[in-house]
């Protein structure tokens, strides 16, 4: 979706202003927001693509002016409401009003955390279809403007690039975010000249890369 999250090339957002010796968390509530998001994700009721979509669906004005753990918290609440884990009144008051949903298992314990994090969530999947492109193939990113989730940013759409590498089959976020299946596709790293994306004033030597699924690309 062309939401507040699709930031590549946006102007006027101010200096980067990195903080010296920045701590991992700035406040207790950030620790809690992080841990709750992780712990609730462990149930597998939603996947990483659905989580990202829940965050990018926040109003753009709010998205661009919120700290990241606020965005995560908003996203988590949206996911839990959708999954029927909580009702709005409960979120407002912080107290139970309806019985918990039976998740057929207890909460993740402290002892299980390291194993879950270590296993991670690999996104590669076996794929019978042969890849359409190979390294050095010239490709063009398609023009599209889906209202749902996509990982093809606006600044690349319609632009021509070259395949740098092929990563095999990967879960396709555009369907996986919407409960329509993993539908793995070949994933490629594609290089775009800075001038192709940003015009003649861009340095001739510079380039941008993105990891793009096969259906985002056509032969150039």
């Amino acid at each position, binding site marked *: 979706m062309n939401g507040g*999250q*699709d*930031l*590549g*090339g*946006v102007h006027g*957002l101010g*200096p*980067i202003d*990195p*903080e010296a010796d920045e701590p*991992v*968390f*700035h406040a207790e*509530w950030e620790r*809690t927001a*992080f*841990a*709750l998001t992780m712990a*609730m994700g462990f*149930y597998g009721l939603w996947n990483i693509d659905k989580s*990202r979509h829940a*965050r990018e669906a926040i109003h753009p004005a709010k998205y*661009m002016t919120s700290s*990241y*753990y606020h965005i995560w*918290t908003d996203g988590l609440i949206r996911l839990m409401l959708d999954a029927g*884990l*909580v009702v709005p009144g409960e*979120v*407002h*008051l*912080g107290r*139970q009003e309806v019985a*918990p949903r039976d998740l057929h298992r207890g*909460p*993740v*314990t*402290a002892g*299980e955390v*390291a194993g879950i994090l*270590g*296993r*991670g*969530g*690999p*996104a590669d999947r076996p794929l019978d279809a042969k890849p359409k492109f190979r390294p050095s193939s010239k490709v063009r990113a398609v023009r599209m403007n889906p209202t749902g989730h996509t*990982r093809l940013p606006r600044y690349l759409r319609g632009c021509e690039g070259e395949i740098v590498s092929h990563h095999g089959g*990967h879960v396709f976020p555009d369907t996986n975010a919407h409960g329509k299946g993993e539908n793995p596709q070949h*994933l490629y790293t594609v290089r775009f000249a*800075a001038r192709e994306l*940003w015009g003649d004033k861009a*340095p001739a*030597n*510079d*380039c*941008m*890369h993105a*990891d793009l*699924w096969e259906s985002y690309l056509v032969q150039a």
Partner: protein
Amino acid sequence: MRVKALESLLVEKGYVEPAALDELIETYETRVGPRNGAAVVAKAWADAAYMQKLRTDATSAIADLGFIGRQGEHMVALENTDDTHNMVVCTLCSCYPWPVLGLPPVWYKSPPYRSRAVSDPRGVLDEFGVHLPESVGVKVWDSTAEVRYLVIPQRPGGTDGWTEDQLATLVTRNSMIGTGLALKPGQVKP
């Protein structure tokens, strides 16, 4: 506070266990961070065979040092050279290689960096105090899928014969994102 209320609710409903929340926080606050990535870079500088493995299969080379799992399932190493400088961003969210760098700093997740890293990387580098000659090409990597990138900065001069532990002190978090360079021997804080 809204997050505190949310925590109380989720504990009351039996969805989360407080000890597990503490374990998650402690993991990323004390155990997983850029020291991991610095060990990878130092080994790559010191050991040509390891550097070669990083080039061909970074996920397994990094796993050899025990850094595995969430947000590092599919790793690629990007080697800076005399004529190439690599820089990593996630314009669409906050994708970052957790097992080697820990959780991302605020600026990495914020609109100013995410918007300009792709459209004006040299301006961004200037803001970080990195001034590159035109002859050095800047390669930006937008983490749009589940592939995660680790920049291998150039090894500074004057470090011949240094051990991996000594070399690791020169490797900053920003040098592994590409918004910094490795420190020179005289720049290390005691």
